[in-house]
């Protein structure tokens, strides 16, 4: 176990290092010149060169990357080119909002996805099953931008049940969580359905049925706990999908998380922020996967760590 963990940690660090190198290189190769953006339209070439020197952007790639890495180790992500604030401060101030959204999204996708999958499995082969599976397919394929605007229009503008975007109360959280959750709910419904069908075929379920146990008891006490575990273990992997989703969903709903920060930084070629958000996201994904793998054997004894 310890050896396994150690190996996985080293792997994770290598992945993060790789991500930082690739992102840094891609941003370095970008034809856009961040110095010109900082210097503005009225700057003389001399001003531009002064700024380039101060930021160390006149140095060769390897020097720049090395400087970035050494600062990174001490937790310093640098200063934003455009906002001129510490990147760490910007990310930290926005992280709680993104985490909250993630929790809301996980709740939504589990609630929606698991119940849809469960019903579909129990009513396997019926019209209900088919309808739910078509719905899950739509959920998986619908672009989040469209889903978000649709939900906003129906539930916020038309029905006034929820506020039109923004941040602050639980009512602000519902629509963005739902938008993020619908994508995952589609996957979970499909996984839950097949997992449940699988479990319902098992001998112990047949035995329980033969004992004359109530249908409800068989489903909820015997089948569900076993069917749900492998599905739950997927949540860690979801984090990667969420990291992509928050960029879109946070922009639509005006949700002040790191996705919105990333989107704005990309538009303005604010390299320190792009680097910072990418690294934080990569860290979250690596951590999520690691947790999913480590926890899996505890949830499902059929899986062994190697």
């Amino acid at each position, binding site marked *: 176990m310890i050896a396994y963990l150690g190996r996985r940690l080293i792997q994770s660090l290598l992945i993060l290092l790789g991500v930082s190198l690739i992102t840094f290189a891609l941003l370095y190769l*970008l*034809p*856009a*010149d*961040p110095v*010109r*953006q*900082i*210097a*503005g*339209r*009225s*700057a*003389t*070439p*001399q*001003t*531009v060169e*002064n*700024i380039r020197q*101060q930021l160390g952007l006149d140095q060769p790639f390897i020097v720049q990357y090395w400087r970035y890495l050494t600062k990174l180790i001490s937790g310093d992500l640098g*200063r*934003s080119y*455009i*906002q*001129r*604030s510490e990147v760490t*401060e*910007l990310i930290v*101030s*926005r992280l709680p*909002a993104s985490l909250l959204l993630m929790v809301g999204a996980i709740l939504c996708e589990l609630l929606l996805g698991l119940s849809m999958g469960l019903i579909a499995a129990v009513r396997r082969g019926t019209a209900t099953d088919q309808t739910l599976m078509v719905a899950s397919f739509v959920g998986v394929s619908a672009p989040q931008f469209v889903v978000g*605007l649709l939900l*906003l229009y129906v539930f*916020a*503008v038309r029905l*006034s049940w929820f506020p*039109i*975007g*923004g*941040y602050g109360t639980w009512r602000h959280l519902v629509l963005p969580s739902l938008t993020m959750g619908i994508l995952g709910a589609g996957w979970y419904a499909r996984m839950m359905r097949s997992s449940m069908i699988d479990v319902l075929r098992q001998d112990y379920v047949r035995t329980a049925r033969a004992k004359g146990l109530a249908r409800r008891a068989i489903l909820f006490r015997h089948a569900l706990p076993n069917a749900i575990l492998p599905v739950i273990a997927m949540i860690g992997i979801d984090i990667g999908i969420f990291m992509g989703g928050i960029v879109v969903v*946070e*922009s*639509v*709903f*005006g*949700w*002040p*998380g790191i996705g*919105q*920060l990333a989107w*704005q930084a*990309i*538009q*303005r*070629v604010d390299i320190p922020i792009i680097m910072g958000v990418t690294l934080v996201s990569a860290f979250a994904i690596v951590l999520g996967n690691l947790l999913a793998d480590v926890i899996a054997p505890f949830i499902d004894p059929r899986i062994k760590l190697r």
Partner: protein
Amino acid sequence: MKKFLASTVAASALALMLGMTSVRAEDAIDPNAKQGGAITITYKDDVATLDPAIGYDWQNWSMIKSLFDGLMDYEPGTTNLKPDLAESYEISPDGKTFTFKLRHGVKFHNGREMTADDVKYSLDRVTNPKTQSPGAGFFGSIKGYDDVAAGKAESLSGVTVVDPYTVKFELTRPDATFLHVMAINFAHVVPKEEVEKYGADFGKHPVGTGAFKLAEWTLGQRIVFERNADYWHKGLPHLDKITFEIGQEPIVALLRLQKGEIDVPGDGIPPAKFQEVMADPEQKARVVEGGQLHTGYVTMNTTMAPFDNVKVRQAVNMAINKARVIQIINGRAVPANQPLPPSMPGYDKEYKGYPYDVAKAKALLAEAGHPDGFDTQLFAMNTDPNPRIAQAIQQDLAAIGIKASIQSLAQANVIAAGGDKAGAPMIWSGGMAWIADFPDPSNFYGPILGCAGAVPGGWNWSWYCNKDLDAKAAEADSVVDPAKAGERDKMWSAIYDKVMEDAPWAPVFNEQRFTMKSARMGGADNLYVDPVHIPINYDNVYVKDVQ
């Protein structure tokens, strides 16, 4: 336009009588204005900084104007200069020395009185390369600028504190734009002790002399301004509080405006909703339209074949159907025939420009040796509506045989291509187009049409460099005497007419601004399309529903 010229002439006549000394008259305060109340304004993008030496974007430009003041400003809703923190100013007969008398008793938000030392400190700071100000270049005419910019000096030798209420500027050349330069945000006055206290984070803790002070800033969410009760300009501001909500998509902002949750969507009416809004009389009544100091144009790289041939460039000017391009943006613009926008002094009303004439354009191409046209590239920024506009231009060019492939890229990449001599044959300027920093004709020349901008990383994407015109521009800018402003404007008109003869650009349109506001907002319409306080003049607007 007429009105503006008339008032300039009147002011100039007055200035002449006083021996080129100008004394400010107190602004008239709107007698209908009510005191108090709070409004909410939304923006999509984060407010980067509120440091006047650094802030240079759509959201923070006008916010900074409300937190800080400069020696000069403009009468609300107009392009007419007036002294602001200065009480009066004097220009030497050779146009190279400007002396400002400061008003007494002006206090920073921290309670300390503002003096001439602060003015000097602020200018030393903005020109210091360590500040990394995008506006440092505006101060190039001040004596000692080059040494400060090169890091050889810490202080501008041309700025002298005569006494606590008098500051003198010596310039290396007569500069007719200098009063405008003293009005831009980069010249706003900051208190040294606060800048030193917060260092690089001063932009998050702004302290100025302005009508409002910062009350709250929740990163990425909200900025709250509250009224500066000690504001030196009695009777202003009218509002007690302004809340800026950040991160709101324009379309969401419009929905919230319709529900009465916000007062002004700072990013305007989203293009997709424009027709819907204008078709609804109730909503249309709350839209204010105004000109802006903006021109959208196609640049042609005059150093690249075949655009090195003036006939080819003229042909492109004749090939573009501007009326159709304007349809694409729902008529939110007027056709342009010269670099200057119509509301800018120096705009030549007599100039007719190139007509839309496909046959003539084809003939010109044939004369230039391209009877069958040629292949080229048209760069454009990749956000709507720019790719669609580029496509319309592409079709127009195809009609005369020019096959332009569209390179639709992120803003920074297009800017980079334009600043590279061999980068881009043609660029549609939309989304990056020139909006004047101050309402003076010279502002459309130097960086974008003059030789100084035709350098790697510059903004003269046509790489047009006409030494003769550069000399004429310098000559026009040396006419400092306000009484000769009309003469100077004529000189500038002639310069732009000559530019059009050489046709490094095909001017396409001048965008109109449309601001929408809630029914409770009061104040003259021109405050909502203020040419300088963009997008709106926060100091002078008010709400009607307070007691």
